[in-house]
């Protein structure tokens, strides 16, 4: 079964070129040329991955993502203008799974798409695997692999799929320190790149949503130069 991708990019020529390239990479690509068309196609079609440009006429990528996320969990790879940190942070908050600065090497795009697909596959296999790990409970936090829902004190938290994966990895090894490399591979499904702060950004979103312990101690500690640790609170 071929992977279906929806490419939402307003630059006609770039869209055509990317489409041709991704087809060579054995993806099935549908094209949308503005935000509204993109959102309609995304809501009505069955896609495995959305590749989404931010700067677009009619409806920009961030608004599209916001509306799309209210109903769907389909992974989204966001294309941001290079060096625009703000777009990236906002994008992650809206629930983008990964981002790529534009312009970029097209091989990088296909690599990221594959990484996302690998991770989704991994999630599925974890879910179908051992029943004992389906629900992890630690103090007041409960993480359910079946429903992919995290609740704190009985209240469901609104986590993106990357944030869920990060928390799952941390909770599975609570008290241990997980390196950024490991977390990147587990949560984003790819290798850690240079100056890659994706994990840090997802982590700061996760921290904010999760909040500290009742004692006001942070739940997730940054271990400088190494990685992150979910603290066991005795």
């Amino acid at each position, binding site marked *: 079964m071929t992977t279906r991708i929806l490419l939402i990019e307003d630059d006609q020529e770039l869209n055509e070129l990317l489409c041709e390239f991704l087809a060579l990479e054995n993806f099935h690509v549908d094209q949308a040329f503005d935000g509204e068309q993109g959102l309609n196609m995304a809501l009505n079609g069955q896609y495995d991955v959305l590749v989404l440009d931010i700067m677009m006429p009619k409806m920009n990528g961030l608004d599209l993502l916001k509306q799309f996320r209210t109903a769907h969990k389909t992974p989204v790879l966001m294309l941001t203008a*290079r*060096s625009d940190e703000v777009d990236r942070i906002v994008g992650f908050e809206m629930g983008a799974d990964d981002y790529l600065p534009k*312009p970029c*090497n097209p091989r990088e795009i296909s690599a990221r798409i594959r990484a996302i697909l690998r991770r989704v596959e991994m999630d599925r296999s974890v879910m179908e695997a051992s029943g004992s790990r389906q629900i992890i409970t630690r103090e007041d936090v409960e993480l359910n692999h079946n429903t992919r829902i995290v609740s704190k004190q009985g209240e469901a938290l609104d986590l993106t799929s990357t944030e869920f994966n990060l928390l799952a990895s941390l909770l599975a090894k609570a008290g241990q320190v997980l390196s950024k490399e490991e977390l990147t591979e587990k949560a984003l499904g790819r290798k850690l790149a240079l*100056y890659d702060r994706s994990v840090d950004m997802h982590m700061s979103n996760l921290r904010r949503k999760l909040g500290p312990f009742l004692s006001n101690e942070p739940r997730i500690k*940054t271990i*400088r*130069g190494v990685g992150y640790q979910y603290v066991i609170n005795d």
Partner: protein
Amino acid sequence: MSSTIRWPSIFRSLYWKIFFFFWLTLIAAIFSVATLSEIIVQERDQDQYQKVVKLGIKAADIFETKGSAELTEWLYYIHLEFDVTGFMLDAQRRPISLAHLPKNWLEFTLPLTQHRLSERNLKGFQPYSISSSSNRIYTFVALRENSGPYPTWLKHLPILQIVTALLIVALLTAFVTWHITGPLRKLKQATDAFARGHLNTRLHNVAFRKNDEIGEVGLAFNHMAERISLLVSNQQRLFRDISHELRTPLARQQIALELLARKLPDTEHQSLNRIEREIERMNALIDQVLTLLRLEQSDQSPTTETYDLSELLLNLTQDAQFETQSKHQVHLEQPEKNQLTGQPELVSRAVENILRNAIRYTPDDGRVFLRVTADAKSVVIQIEDEGEGVPEDSLKHLFEPFYRVEACRNQQSGGYGVGMAIAEQAIRAQSGSIQASNRATSGLRVIITLPKTPTQH
């Protein structure tokens, strides 16, 4: 000073203001000193008058009680003792004493006119109307001189005059100096701020002084500032638009190249890789230019956060070392924890750019040092390499975009490009400072000073 007063146009010019001011000061000083002298002389006359009248009453009393001979005696006495020379006339204006009768005494037998009584400043014999204890009227005619003794407090009259003159000159001069230098100081502050890069600096409240020379300078400054910031922002916009426009074809080119690579045999891939590298390079350069432009323009107050500089620098050092795959070690010395408030991305970008340069210009057996010291208010980050350093006259240009050091530096290394300029802008955006100097041994030293909490400008 007030805007409600409409001065005649001639007085609005600074030239005439200063001109008239000096005249005013001079006239005020002369007038006040003259007035002071006048008051003092009158005071003395008053004293003299009182004294003479008192002696006249006494003389009248002596005549009534002891007779003419005693009176003559008394008049001689007061001449010696009080330096008052006079003679007495009775109510019918006949002389009643023999002492000091002048040749023209008959004049004083005429009725006293109001005119004569009021003329206090007259010299020579003057009549004083006296009424004795028994209310009989006499005329005491006393010799009047203008050089009587001064009251004791008047001994310092010259000093008093000088002090008064100085005080008036000092006050008026202080006023006019303030009037001129106040706006000049404001102009200097504005110019300094403008030079530091606050291109939206303007002089306010120049309107009400628009008719004098200082007001004109202020307006000229505002016009200049307006023009320069317009030119700068136009240039920046042009730069930004070009950069953005270059990106689109580059992005398409990159994909087209990849498609081409799939169609060509492997033997051609070396050239394709070369093209790809050049595209990457152009992309990187465009990024840097855009970053620099954004930093230069960012006038809006940034969102700050508290972060640990030590953690940031540790990650940065590891990344930089990993990227360059360098044999040379980066020696990092810093406090265990170092909390700062500001924009960590900017600090990270600045240090990263400088660190990369330092690594690039250090030979393989050389070392790179990154030292951090902190006190209560600020943090000093010092980055040193063991490269060849930079010629002294190039140091001050190091932070200019695309500046290339002429001598010694390896041409292939591509110069400093925009990296150092970005570093400077990033540090300046957080009210910090950045300086470059050569080490005593060989190598470049860059010192970044950052306030722990940046001041909002």
